[in-house]
């Protein structure tokens, strides 16, 4: 059989297996499995405001997943993405707090975004440097720095930036209304965010797939030693790939502040970075599929929020389904590869 057709077949079998296991799990808490699937796959698209909410989740997910495809191409497991998103949000908030009445808000948006990207970039470079110069695995350096970033944002929410009188988990004093990114009428969606995410997608796709730089980054990911012998500055390319990923995560964090939370909340990243890692693992370095998978994951996650109310099913089933899909697909890839040899 044709190899491509066969690999498509195995992918379909893998997706079917993931759905089947999810169905069995759903049976443990509800008899109405079909209804539950309908909500998971369609629930997020049933009204304009729900679609808007789904896009609000998809945009930062897309930004993280794009960045992670770059760092994956360079062979790095950037588990520090959540921390990079968090410090991006902190930096953006720090800048927006300087706003004085009467000034133009768009300048502050621009600077907040730049500050967020820079801070995310620095946080990612810290991981890269720890790995390159002190041999600490990027997984543990990244995870450690996630905790540090979370500590920093908690400190600001409960300390210097707390609401006058009451410090609470709900976040700092909200930004002035004029600093909120404008939303589509009737929804909570700041329309600029998905546009920025799509622009980032196109730009990064071109850089990674069609530039000399992208080719070198991918070569470093495949074999750092071989690429060094071929004269590619492997260390520099790895650092640059991590920096790009960190900057995109920081951008996502900054946009969460000005477009979604309008305040600094303790956990800016709230698992979006980790979901981005699942997306990136699923598409590997092929960035063209990132929007498809991110769209699908965003639908499942937004849809699952309706599950507890309508069927009293715990919403974490969306995470289970996503994990099962990624697992089944990477297993199916290994099996097809085995079948060929």
């Amino acid at each position, binding site marked *: 059989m044709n190899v491509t057709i066969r690999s498509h077949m195995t992918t379909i079998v893998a997706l079917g297996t993931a759905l089947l296991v999810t169905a069995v*799990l759903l049976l443990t808490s509800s008899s109405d499995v079909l209804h539950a699937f309908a909500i998971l796959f369609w629930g997020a698209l049933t009204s304009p405001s729900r679609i808007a909410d789904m896009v609000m989740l998809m945009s930062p997910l897309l930004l993280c997943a794009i960045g992670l495809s770059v760092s994956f191409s360079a062979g790095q497991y950037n588990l520090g993405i959540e921390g990079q998103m968090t410090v991006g949000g902190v930096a953006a908030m720090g800048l927006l707090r300087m706003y004085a009445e009467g000034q133009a808000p768009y300048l502050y948006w621009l600077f907040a975004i730049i500050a967020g990207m820079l801070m995310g970039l620095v946080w990612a470079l810290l991981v890269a440097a720890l790995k390159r110069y002190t*041999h*600490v695995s990027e997984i543990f350096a990244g*995870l450690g720095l996630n905790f*540090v970033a979370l500590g920093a944002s908690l*400190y600001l929410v409960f300390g210097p930036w707390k609401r006058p009188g009451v410090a609470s988990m709900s976040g700092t004093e909200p930004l002035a209304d004029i600093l909120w990114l404008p939303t589509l009428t009737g929804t909570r969606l700041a329309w600029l965010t998905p546009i920025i995410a799509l622009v980032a997608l196109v730009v990064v796709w071109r850089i990674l797939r069609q530039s000399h730089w992208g080719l070198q980054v991918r070569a470093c990911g495949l074999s750092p030693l071989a690429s060094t012998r071929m004269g590619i500055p492997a260390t520099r390319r790895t650092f640059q790939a991590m920096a790009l990923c960190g900057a995109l995560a920081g951008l996502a964090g900054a946009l969460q502040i000005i477009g979604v939370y309008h305040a600094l909340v303790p956990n800016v990243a709230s698992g979006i970075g980790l979901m981005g890692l*699942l997306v990136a693992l699923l598409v590997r370095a092929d960035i063209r599929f990132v929007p498809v998978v991110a769209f699908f994951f965003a639908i499942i996650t937004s849809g699952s929020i309706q599950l507890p109310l309508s069927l009293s099913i715990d919403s*974490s089933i969306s*995470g289970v389904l996503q994990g099962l899909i990624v697992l089944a697909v990477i297993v199916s890839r290994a099996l097809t590869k085995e079948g060929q040899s």
Partner: protein
Amino acid sequence: MNSPQLVTDIAAIIAMSAPLVFATMGIYITERAGVINLSVDGAMLLAGMAGFAVALLTSSVVLGFLAASVVGALVAALVAFLGISLRLSQTAVGFVLALLCTDLSSFLGNPYVQQTGPAVAAFPVPGLRDLPVLGRLFFQHDMVIYTSMVIVPLIAWWVYRTRSGLILRGLGERPEALFARGVDVIRARYMAVILGGVLIGIAGAAYTLDLKQGWTYRHIAGTGWIALAIVIFGAWRPWRVLFGCYLFALLQTLASRLQDNTWQIPTQVLQVAPFVIMIVVLAVVNTLGSAEMQTRLQRLPTGLQRILRYITSPAPAALGQPFEQQ
């Protein structure tokens, strides 16, 4: 019971380290066999949830621990199958399973959230418990904590003093040599990974049935990653891993103790301090252990060299590499 504060604190540190000791020993055995199991964080949550649920339904703490170790073993067996037999990236598989098991624990554990269930009973050792200081430190805990105190010497003895322990170390260092001598490397690795999984499962139950006594969503999320880092910090040596566990618990205790201090250090800063210290220590240890540093260190006096070599013992040479049995 009128012991000085310091003694009470140290006893508390020993008690709160117990789950970490089980988890790190499980990871230690797994990695000594040359396999990386990154799923620990999720596996502990899932096993802890299962252990609590079973203990609640059967009113038996022992059955709870049994269920938890079965769950831990199953997740580990999956890691072994995907990583050893299918030769998938152990990092990717472990990470996905960590997230998957976390969400699975939230989903399946939903009915048991914040229920009051059975817990491990305190068991002061008769006679020994009344010893001055020592009694309070070591002999007024429960069976789980006593086990955590003896398991490290047991494992150290097994790994360094028995034939099967030698095979375990060989699996992680030179599996091809073992294979040449007729050892079934793949089967032996499976056994080590599953045994490690049992200990990781027990660690989860040690939280839900003993230290935290109950189950809520993701309540111990993060500890699995910490355990993985502690094993690196401990440079794959049981006693140093144990020291790492106690050090981490000590830092956490200090953090909560210093909250109401006169220095005005914010709580959140103290809570992340252990992670910062962990990264710094890993950085120092790994830098000293790198090949280029080792050549430079050869100019130092031999005594100093020996100390440094002790600090920087390397990772098992075949860690994370699949083995192809012909």
